[in-house]
């Protein structure tokens, strides 16, 4: 099977078949990311569609030195979702049947087998995140996966806004030093 990197490079040459294969292989993860960010499946579908249209139009600017294709595509799709969130006057209600708050998949669920399947950049990032304090780590992961604002984090964690801001700021500083 062609790797996502190869498929994305072929998309840059306007290869529609490669684009379809790229979509088939990567859309389930990118859709799951959209669902978590916007908490609404219909909106997540719209964002995924818009995101893949951007991916098609911008694929020619992708090269291997820009990192993994999935990460590159996640950037496109996530930016699309964050833009939509900022435009929305209010955040959608959380669906009662779906646990969109859980971070288990990003912590306990990482088995040694899964870890070896991840790109080296992601492995390094996870190692760096292990060194963060639990509350810093949780804030950063909640912000990444669920698009939580400082205010939302302060409310959900029942901590003062300034404390949450400081956790994130210091967490990012530590990550910066670790990733350098």
């Amino acid at each position: 099977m062609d790797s996502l990197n190869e498929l994305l490079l072929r998309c840059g040459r306007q290869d529609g078949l490669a684009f379809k294969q790229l979509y088939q292989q990567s859309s389930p993860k990118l859709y799951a990311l959209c669902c978590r960010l916007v908490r609404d499946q219909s909106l997540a579908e719209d964002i995924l569609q818009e995101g893949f249209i951007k991916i098609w139009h911008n694929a020619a600017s992708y090269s291997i030195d820009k990192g993994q294709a999935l990460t590159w595509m996640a950037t496109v799709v996530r930016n699309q979702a964050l833009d939509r969130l900022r435009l929305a006057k209010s955040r959608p209600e959380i669906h009662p049947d779906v646990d969109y708050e859980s971070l288990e998949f990003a912590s306990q669920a990482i088995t040694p087998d899964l870890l070896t399947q991840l790109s080296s950049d992601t492995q390094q990032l996870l190692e760096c995140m292990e060194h963060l304090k639990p509350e810093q780590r949780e804030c950063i992961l909640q912000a990444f996966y669920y698009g939580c604002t400082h205010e939302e984090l302060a409310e959900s964690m029942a901590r003062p806004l300034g404390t949450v801001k400081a956790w994130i700021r210091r967490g990012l500083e530590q990550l910066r030093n670790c990733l350098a």
Partner: protein
Amino acid sequence: MKRYKNPDIFEPLAMAYALGTLHGKARLRFEQLMAKHLYIRATVQAYQQKLNGLAELVPPQVVHARVWQGIEQQLNLKAARPSFWSRFHNQLTWALPSLAAVVAAVLTSFLLNQPSKPQAYVAALKSTQQQNQLVLAMAKHDEMTISLDMMNQNLAKEHDGMVPTLWCISKKKDEPPMRMGTLEPSKQEIALNAKMWKGLEGASEFAISLEPSSAGSQAQPQGEIILSGSLHPLAQ
């Protein structure tokens, strides 16, 4: 503005922007800086690449088919498909399932003792997308037919509104593919005429494409190639 040239100032902002925690006016101000300065854009992109690796951990979710349909419609992808040859050669790079390797080995053993004029041709057509999908095809001179073993698959049913069509691909790259006929669940044989049999002598591959039922008998494949495989001559 000068202070934004200090990495200790702009890097944390770039990270916060990449994470999505830079909000309101601060975000707008930072976006203006990004638009002006390449080094800030590059820093943001670098951190986006690092942080967005977290997307690899998300458990996948099934996407409704309408999303792809919307993309395809909006980009008019069917009209902008790459050429048949480009698609065909791209598909040759797909990994082959072990079953196909076994079939190829069996076919090779047949080839070792064959006389000059083939009396039959066989091909194991492998799916370009589903590793366990395989169709066996055998063209016989004495019956002047191509028999297809669909391995209990119904390609027509799987691809509603599309007609699976068999093509013979010439060894000569400048020769167009030859249409052999359509595959139907009730009739898994295609009749050959002398011209088609002659075409098999110079052929390297069989391929099955999905053609729109409304398209009629096209001289060249218009739709997606779903299966393909090398053609092997056999003696009897």
